């Protein structure tokens, strides 16, 4: 089993599985409603310049989110899943 890493560390083109959302209840609901659900594959499409947001794809939905927030989304490389290392 490999450790989970923050989504923010994935490079464009890399995939992972959402393992954990380290966020408060309100944001948890919002992320879930937008498709960021635990157990779903996610792919980083691109990053904006100047440490701007990242674009990710879950299923057929494209989302943008800030890198700071992407630090709180733990992912594992595709088949495994464990906890975030923090």
């Amino acid at each position, binding site marked *: 089993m490999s450790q989970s890493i923050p989504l923010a560390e994935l490079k464009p083109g890399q995939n992972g599985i959402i393992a954990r959302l380290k*966020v408060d209840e*309100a*944001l948890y*609901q*919002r*992320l*879930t*409603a*937008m*498709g960021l*659900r635990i157990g779903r594959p996610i792919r980083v*499409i*691109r*990053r*904006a*310049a*100047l*440490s*701007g*947001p990242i*674009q990710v794809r*879950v*299923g*057929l*939905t*494209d*989302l*943008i*989110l*800030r890198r*700071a*927030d992407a630090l709180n989304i733990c992912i594992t490389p595709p088949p495994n899943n464990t906890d975030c290392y923090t």
Partner: protein
Amino acid sequence: MKRMALVGMPNTGKSTFFNRLTGAGARVGNWPGVTVDLLGAKILLGGHMVELVDLPGLYDLHGFTEDERVVRHFLENNPVDLVAIILNASQIDHQIAIALQFKQLGIPAILLLNMSDEAEKLGIRIDTRRMSETLGMPVMALSAKFGKGFSEARQAITGMLEISEQRPGLEDLKGKLAQDDQMETQMRTIISQSVQYPRMLAESFTARLDRLLLHPWLGLPIFFGVMYLLFQGIFLLGAPLQDAVEWLLGMIDQNVLEPFLATSPGWLHGLVVDGIYNGVGTVASFVPIIVLFFLFMAVIEDTGYLSRAAFLMDALMSRLGLDGRSFVMLLMGFGCNVPALMGTRVMRSRALRLLTMMVIPFSLCSARLQVFIFITAALFPPKHAPLVLFSLYLMSFATAILTALLFKRKFTSIEPFVLELPPYRLPTLMQLWLRGWQEVMHFLRRASTFIVIGVVLVWALTHLPPGIPEASAQSFAGILGNWFAPVLAPLGIDTQMTIALLFGFVAKEIVVGALAVIHGMEGNALTQQIAISMDWVQAYSFMLFTLIYTPCLSTIATLRSESRSNLYAWGTVAWSLGLAWGVSFVFYQGARALGY
């Protein structure tokens, strides 16, 4: 009367469906338990009058945004017969959660899988019959934009309303919703049973276009380039239309009004022709440009490019204590500040909302644009006019940035920024036509109420008391202007322009109308008169002041109602008045000191 509510996530085509179902007969109105206005319409379905209410977009019935609260309060306080849930068929895998939540609540519902045209193109196949069986509510595929499946959906809704019984408002809606764990399994079951995804997705047109438009370094220059071209386009197309309207108004004046009023007393002729007709007419000549402006905005909004702008600008906006959505709202504010202010309801953090609402009034809205086009045309050579306008847009951004920087410590937020990036879409001609028509109607409503009242008041102020030379120092307008002279004279703003500014506080459209009335002229004669009455330094100072001092009364009212704080609303107004004075003062005195 039966009542049906429309719910769904933002951007799923709720408004498109609502418009198709209601025609153009929608009105904003108040509902019990809800503090904001909602769009509603009464339509005849089957044999029944049905009241249709378009609820704000929501992500989750548990949600914490203003919009989500509104939906809950509405459902708690208003009985409904039926809820139509709209979702984006391509995103059914997670959006189906809303349908399950409504099922849990026991509210009779129908599920409409919208944008089925896009889902079809992607190769997604949904077995609606199967889904409807497991879900326990009718499920219909539909394309609200192109109309496919619409009449079937309408029929199904009619059928359900036929046999429906109105449910009273739900008590303790949140308590009734079970936790999400069981739902997760239910969702997976339903999706795996009734939705088929294609094995491989070809790279979409959107993905290819995004590689260019969201390019880390080219993205922003391209964005501003596109904006620049749009403005060029608006003026290129708008100028001849504006001339045409002026010509038409002149013809009506000469051939209808003048003969008709030939025998009437001088004051009546003055009031009707110099007051109302010239005043409203001068404002009306800008309608083509404004309509074009909103059409272009609508296209941009519809294509999904604005979400891309949010992506590109978020890094910069975060340094101002704002986020990418704030930037989109600023852009929307270029059309009209009021809807832009209301658009901030999607933000969950109050601090972020308040800071965003504080900068939106500095967006150079289309009403202010009219004033600037008018003054610029009068005082600057055609070669310089675009530069002058451009500089005002820069000022608009600069004041917004300054405001955000100064107040970001007062309104600090740590709101996470998450936004959907929809595929690129093009509006249909029908959608554009409707949008243009709405703008014309909007203008006519404003024109028939306070623009007329405004110009009549200006006419009265400049012509009374009786027997004085019009707009002279002895007129009420002159007296009023003199009161303000100590404050406005240092900005180079004379008493006549002061009157225009006073009325501009109510709405910027009245400014050009007021100038027409004050000078008793219209068209070219008016522009020439304005050019004589001030020099370019005064004109620019006047425009700076107009840009910054306050958008209009509606904006102030919206600031107040959206923030529910008098202190905040008036504080914002006080800040912009002060800033306007300061900027104009520095510019005017500076330019004079430099010998201009």
